[in-house]
């Protein structure tokens, strides 16, 4: 689970072009949207692509995304449960 969380943090930094962040800067329970990392709607869509590409999870309802992309902790738990890759 810790390896997955680290992997996710690296992925988020790279895929979403968070130039000023390192893995250490992102706490497991930091809010991804809003006041934490400040991701926006395009980032949310890009995370949906990442879920499919890296973990074989297809999220078709953007509202489902809201519940999943809360923090790295929540996201990692979801991926561990549903991943097909």
């Amino acid at each position, binding site marked *: 689970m810790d390896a997955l969380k680290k992997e996710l943090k690296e992925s988020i930094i790279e*895929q*979403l*072009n*968070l*130039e*000023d962040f390192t893995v250490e800067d992102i706490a497991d329970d930091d809010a991804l949207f809003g006041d934490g990392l*400040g991701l926006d709607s*395009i*980032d949310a*869509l*890009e995370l949906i*692509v990442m879920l*499919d*590409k890296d973990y074989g999870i297809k999220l078709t309802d953007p509202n489902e995304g809201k519940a999943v992309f809360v923090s790295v902790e929540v996201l990692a738990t979801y991926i561990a449960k549903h991943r097909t890759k």
Partner: protein
Amino acid sequence: MKKQLKIIAYCHIKNNTISINGKSIIAKDKDLSFSDFVKQIYKEKQLAYPKFFKMDNLCKLAFLTSEFLFEAAKLDSKIIKHTGIVLSNSASSLDTDRKYQDTITDKDNYFPSPAVFVYTLANIMIGEISIRHQIKGENAFFVSEKFNETLIEHYASSLITNKKSSHILCGWVDMDNNNYDAFMYLVSEEGLYNYSKKIIKKTYTQN
């Protein structure tokens, strides 16, 4: 009655060199990649604008050129908010289009990227500049084989004559397979330098 326009300031970024009003102010190693060049400029200018790194190369180029230009122009913030933006290039967003095409060409590795797709329109650069400075003025993006100073002059003049804009950010921002060229100038009825399409052409070619 055609308006007599003036140039307030101009900026050219080409060959890893930045010049303002004809004077070179930053010159970096010509062998630096565009990515490394803009990263260095960003850090040295202490821009503190995280959205910069989400932009594609074309928008990064346009954004930086406008940063230097607005800094040199020292316009009142009330004026900036209504500035018209009239930009142009030759390759549109093809540099980014090819990158997006790569995310969909291989059907066994088919993952269209929304973050890349959103930059597959050249006018997005106008959006990025507008968001940065909260500019809600007139916009237009033209595509032409070469920088067409006549077209831009006619359009900027029309905007001023029609009372749509008092100040206009004009220019050419092109990015195509690692070749880039950005030239922006601010015009209005009052400014430091005389303006005509001949002067602009000369300035663009010389710098």
